[in-house]
């Protein structure tokens, strides 16, 4: 089309430039800072070459935080998917239930995670909170929610599942509701029971949405921060310390800005690579299964 260039720019440039300005400068700045020895004692961009990166490679706390992050994220997202899908299936065909449950289940997702974390902290308080009351009722005795690593991890996962299962629920329910009816009628005519219908018809048909939902949730879950900060502070010890939290401590608490910057850059690169690989593989599985 003639005379279009001016308009192409009018639409794209404002947003693009603003985003680049706000994101690129900090990014480049961080990279530069990562080569400096900026900390509380020596502020400023004094060049120290790759010292920070060398230190990072030997920093087992950093690498362990990555594996902890992976555990927490994968477990949470898997649970959210299974529960969300299960709930969506339960509610799929009952119209009356659908409206009520949709509002009800929507609520956790709309709450401020950090504020809910404050409430969860009181709930999981080992002597004054209702969680141990419930545990006692079910015959488990006092559970060391926040003082034993395994339980602390479980608390983090439970909170995340509470908060974000609704996301999966809503997305998957919308997907189920938009499925065409014909394959299900065909399955019914073929005499397939509910389980066979699920595995042969429902689940494959939901593959695209599954992939999309998983990718979105994995990306968002990898940024988990508030829960750790408010409830466990990375503890007990460092058992729930995610990479983000560790960098936060190093950078904004210990004020080792230069080192934290190098951690950030490394973390970012790892996340981009990992998430891109995961996203592309999921999409590949999707494409293959469609054939």
């Amino acid at each position, binding site marked *: 089309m003639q005379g279009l260039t001016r308009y192409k720019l009018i639409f794209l440039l404002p947003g693009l430039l603003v985003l680049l300005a706000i994101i690129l400068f900090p990014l480049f700045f961080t990279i530069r800072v990562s080569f400096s020895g900026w900390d509380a004692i020596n502020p400023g961009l004094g060049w120290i070459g790759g010292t920070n990166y060398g230190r990072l490679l030997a920093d087992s706390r950093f690498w362990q935080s990555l594996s902890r992050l992976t555990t927490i994220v994968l477990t949470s997202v898997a649970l959210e998917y299974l529960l969300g899908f299960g709930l969506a299936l339960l509610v799929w065909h009952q119209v009356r239930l659908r409206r009520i449950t949709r509002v009800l289940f929507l609520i956790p997702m709309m709450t401020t995670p950090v504020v809910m974390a404050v409430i969860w902290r009181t709930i999981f308080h080992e*002597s004054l909170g209702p969680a141990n009351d419930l545990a006692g009722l079910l015959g488990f005795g006092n559970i060391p929610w926040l003082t034993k690593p395994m339980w602390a991890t479980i608390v983090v996962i439970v909170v995340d599942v509470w908060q974000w299962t609704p996301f999966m629920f809503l997305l998957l329910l919308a997907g189920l509701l938009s499925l065409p009816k014909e394959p299900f009628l065909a399955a019914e005519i073929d005499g397939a029971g509910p389980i066979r219908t699920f595995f042969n018809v429902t689940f494959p048909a939901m593959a695209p949405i599954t992939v999309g939902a998983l990718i979105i949730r994995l990306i968002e879950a990898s940024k988990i921060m508030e829960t750790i900060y408010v409830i466990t502070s990375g503890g007990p010890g460092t058992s729930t310390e995610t990479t983000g939290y560790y960098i936060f401590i190093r950078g904004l608490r210990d004020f080792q800005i230069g080192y934290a910057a190098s951690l950030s850059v490394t973390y970012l690169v790892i996340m981009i690579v990992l998430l891109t690989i995961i996203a592309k593989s999921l999409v590949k599985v999707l494409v293959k299964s469609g054939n």
Partner: protein
Amino acid sequence: MRPFLKLLKIVAILVWSVFVVAPFLWALTTSFKTANGVTNGATYLPWIDYEPSLAAWKGLFGSDAGSIDIVGPFANSLIVTLSASFISLTLGTLVAYGLSRFRYKLGPISNADLTFFFISQRIMPPVVLAIPFFLMLGFLGLLDTILGLVLVYIALLLPIAVWVMVDFFNNIPKELDETAIIDGCTPFEAFWRVILPNSLPGLVVAGIFCIVFGWNDFFFAFTLTFTQTQLLPVAIVSLNSSVTPWWSLSASALISVVPLIVVAFLVERYLEKGNISGAKK
């Protein structure tokens, strides 16, 4: 077999519903407690387990010592969230329209790359940006200011707006734009007079996502503000670390989540009209 399954379904839904509602109920009853209701173990029912009191709630709005200022942070959150959402939505919709309608080519970079660039900003872990933002805003004198926060939030919310609106625009046939252009509209007028009026559902979804993500942010507000400008989530959490009693904590927490719960109701009504189910991706 059938009635048993049905029972199982209902039980499952009930169990999950209880799980969903439990934290709120706990916070609610806790907000009416006094020291007695807390220090001797968990209590649940007012008047039966403990003596209820309105102290916490009164403290929220009062200005005497021992009370918490919620109104200030609440207002700040409102201003920052709405401004950043509005700007992000505006800029993001423009970008999304461009990416949906035009073919961009700058060397090897094409539409798909540009879209990926915008959307992939969501991968950025907050902490990676927090440190440079901290330094740079400090340098610009924008730490602890509303403007500084709004700028930062734009970077977070713009990708969301682009993501939702690109998909939405792709579902509007290009022939509609073409007809407007043939009728004498420049591409911008076609966007403004024809496509935008027909994009309300998409804008609502994008707007809600922006507002929710903006309102709920803690990390950036926490690292980039201190005393002058406090946002609601930060205010609540700062209560956590001091000697604030549980009941004040619960009351403040409940107040802060109420607005979005209202939004949740509105969203559900909108969903029911069938408008969003296709756009949610």
